[in-house]
Structure formats: C-alpha cells, structure tokens
C-alpha cells in the first residue's frame, strides 16, 4: 500500500502533466509527418527579444519569444502563478494585473511591450501573513467559491478604487461633471470586466464596498 502522502499532487502539477501529455501527442504526430527540410516554405523561426521590467518591487530581465504575453511571462518565466489564465482572449478578467498603476488584462499584452514598466500582481499586494485590505475583505466576506477569478477580482478592485479617486466616470454615472460616489450600481458596472462563474458577485460587491468605505 502506497503512502498516501506520495500521491499528493498540486492542482498545478496535474495541469502540467496534462499539458505535457498534449505536447507528447503533438510531437508523435509531427514525427510521422515530413522532415522539416522537405516541408513547404520553411516556417518562420521564433524571435527572441530582451525586456526588463519591475514586478512586485523586484527588477526582472527576461529574454523572451516576442509572442510571449505578459501573462505567460509572469506565470511560466517568473513562476508567479497567482495571476490566472482564464479565457486568454480578454473576456474574463482572471489575468488582471496592475501595470503602471492601471489595471490591464495581461493576456492581451505582450511582455516585450512592458520595458521599464512596474507590474503589480496578486503576490505583490499582500502576503499570507500581511494581507492587503482587499484580500482580507474577500476572505471575511467569503467573496469566492473556487477562487480562480479571485486574484484578478482583487487586482481589478484595488485599481478600480483608484480610478474613482482619480475622477474617472463610468457608464452608469448620472452626471459626468461632479466626482463619482461608489454606489452598488457604480461598483457592478466598473467590475464588469471580471467574470465569476461561481456567481460570488454579491459577496464580492460587499467586500469591495467595505474596503471603499474604510478608505473614505
């Protein structure tokens, strides 16, 4: 009988094994095809490019395939796997990080486009011992079920409150001129770029509201 501890694998290990399985299948299919030299016009080769930026206060220098998104650079090259890959097409917000003080979707941004940029990911907002107030509020209000969208929700919420502070209006702002208040309608509209398939929205809204009110 095996020691149960030997069977313990993380969710990430399972995903990596799964991906490796796909890669192996593709490799075996490729080996049955023509040798590269006999193929049609030689496929364009990957291009490497250097980029340096600061992530969570630490300078990073990377030599990346130009095709690498900021999301993949963070997860696969810097091992910052807190930022999640959801749709990888800018529709779900799971990959939201803060770049130059602004929330962006890191899946629709190339890493090489962030030369000298300052990136903050969920790992840079707080630590398990010293949570960011938004992280603490999400825990307190049970603002998640599976947790996959949570890092993106939290990064988005932190930057969203800065946008209100800076006077950025929203679609539901009744009057464009005066400074906006954080009503529930404002909060929901401004967070619409972060989807939660578990539907924890009401608790997410409560968590963000608590942080917003404590700041006022």
């Amino acid at each position, binding site marked *: 009988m095996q020691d149960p501890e030997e069977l313990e694998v993380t969710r990430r290990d399972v995903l990596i094994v799964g991906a490796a399985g796909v890669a192996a299948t593709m490799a075996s299919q490729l080996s049955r095809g023509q040798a590269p030299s006999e193929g049609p016009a030689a496929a364009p080769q990957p291009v490497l490019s250097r980029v340096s930026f600061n992530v969570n206060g630490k300078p990073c220098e990377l030599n990346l395939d130009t095709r690498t998104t900021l999301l993949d650079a963070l997860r696969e090259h810097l091992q910052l796997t807190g930022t999640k890959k959801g749709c990888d097409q800018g529709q779900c917000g799971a990959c939201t990080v803060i770049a130059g003080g602004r929330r962006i979707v890191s899946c629709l*941004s*190339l890493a090489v486009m962030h030369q000298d940029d300052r990136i903050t990911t969920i790992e840079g907002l707080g630590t398990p011992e010293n949570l960011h107030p938004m992280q603490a509020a999400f825990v307190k209000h049970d603002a998640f079920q599976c947790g996959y969208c949570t890092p993106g929700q939290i990064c988005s919420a932190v930057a969203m409150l800065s946008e209100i502070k800076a006077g950025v209006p929203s*679609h539901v702002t009744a009057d464009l001129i005066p400074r906006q208040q954080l009503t529930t309608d404002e909060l929901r509209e401004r*967070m619409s770029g972060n989807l939660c398939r578990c539907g924890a929205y009401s608790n997410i809204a409560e968590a963000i509201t608590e942080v917003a009110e404590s700041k006022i």
Partner: protein
Amino acid sequence: MKPFTYERAHSPAEAAAAAARNQGAKFVAGGTNLLDLMKLEIEKPTHLIDVNGVGLDKIDATPEGGLRIGALVRNTDLAANEHVRRDYGVLARALLAGASGQLRNMATTAGNLLQRTRCPYFYDTNQPCNKRDPGSGCGAINGYSRQHAIVGVSDACIATHPSDMAVALRVLDATVETVQADDSVRKIPIAEFHRLPGDQPHIDTVLMPGEMITAVTLPKPAGGIQIYRKVRDRASYAFALVSVAAIIQRDGTGRVALGGVAHKPWRVEAAEAEMPRGAKAVVARLLADAQTTPDNAFKLMLVERVLNAVLADAKGVQP
C-alpha cells in the same frame, strides 16, 4: 501565433518609415484586438512596430476652439478628460459604454477606430469569410445573423463595425489625421474613414499600407443635449445590437448616428431634417435602404424605439 520580429519606434516618422521597410508589419499600441486576432492567426504580421513610445498621448485645444486627441490617448483618459466630459459628452458616454475598465485602460483612440469586426464568422477560421479570406464566401448571410448589419451591406459581407467611440466621432464630425513614410499628412473626415464592404470587405478603412493615425480632431463644441444610448444583450461589457449617438438642440433640430447597424458608423445627414418630426420620420430616411435578414430585421424597430427614447430623454419626458 506566428513568430514576428519586434521594434519600438520613438517618433511617428520612425514608425511610418519602419512600416514602409517591412511588408507585413503592423503597428501595435494597446494590442487588445490585434493580439486576440494574432492568437487565432487571423492577423499574421511578420513584424510589430510598438508605437507606445512615439508621443501622441496628449489632448490639446485647437486654434479653432476644438480638441486634438493624440492617437495614443487611452480610452479611459479620453472619457475622463474634463473638456470631453463638459463639451463632448456623447464621446465620453460612448467610450464608457464600450469594453471593460481594463480594456479601456489599454485601448487607444487610433486602435479603437482600427479594431476589426466581431462577426463570429470572421473569428471562426473554419467558416468562410470574405473579410478574413477574400473570395471564400460569407457564412453570416445565410447563417446566424442576429448581430449583423442591416444597411450598407453587400452580397459579400454583412459585418458591423464594433466601435462605440467611432459612432460618437461621426456625430461630432471628427477628422482623422495621418502620416505616411514620405512625411505626407492627410486629414480624413470620419465620414470617409471607414468603408462599406462592397466587393472588398477585407479592407475596413481608406488608410494606405503603412499610413499611421497621429490624431483625431474635434471641431468646436456643438452644444445641445448629447446622448449615447446603447442596447446590448447584457447590461455591461458587450457589443451593441444597436446604439444611437445624438446631439439635440433646444429647438428640436439635431444630429444622429447609429452603431451596430452597418460596416461603419451610420449617419445620413438628409434624415436629420426630420428630427423635429420624431423618430419614425428620421428612421424612415436613415434606414431607407435597409436590407435585413430574418434574424436581424428586429433592428429596424429597435432603432426607431431607441431613437424615440433618446428624443424623449432630450426633452426631459418619459417616452
């Protein structure tokens, strides 16, 4: 995604020259649409010119009393600009009705104009699409066409232009300024900037290869009550089924442009003479040449109802 070489341009002239040197080059700024399409290999640039460092990120007053919006001004910054909020409310409203907070932080003024259609047949490389693969046919015309164009369509394409911002620019009579590698500059009225599909739906705009947008200028404020009303399948973060950008003066005259109904922002100046007579009269001329499918014929009624609501809103009454 296909491999590509990459460079950072430091001035508009440098960017235009780089584009002239590299066939198959594309400019990238926000990247929110281009990268998405590159992942699907619908766009296959062999060289990317990053224009984020060329300047062009300011909003300045013009000597004529209008505004000059740099090509790289982000959608968030344009919507939050105090002059835009005060004098060009329809533009602020249209920007805020589009995309999400994250995407508006990334997307630029020029990139917004140059975004491609979100027609699902354009995005699905297993389907025929004359815009993606000229001559392959149109999957939408006899397919699922609920979101598609109802006016200015052709036998080759019924895609819509997805931008909200462009609809507001159309009603504001904006001008698009460009530069080419030989340093020549052009000023293109927004009405002429986007094309109708005709038999070349793969060409969205009148820009020449390598020509770069440097700015969008607005004439002096038109005043009036400015409204952007967008109808979509969910309350936020979705493309328009139909949208109405309107500038309505106290005497009931005004201007109106539509989104979600054509391959470009749709405006028929002659129809605006009917504004004081109400939505039905305006729409009768605005959509006189409409060609609908069974799926999208509802847009005719929807346009009229949305315009009716907008006109009532401008008068401060319930429709």
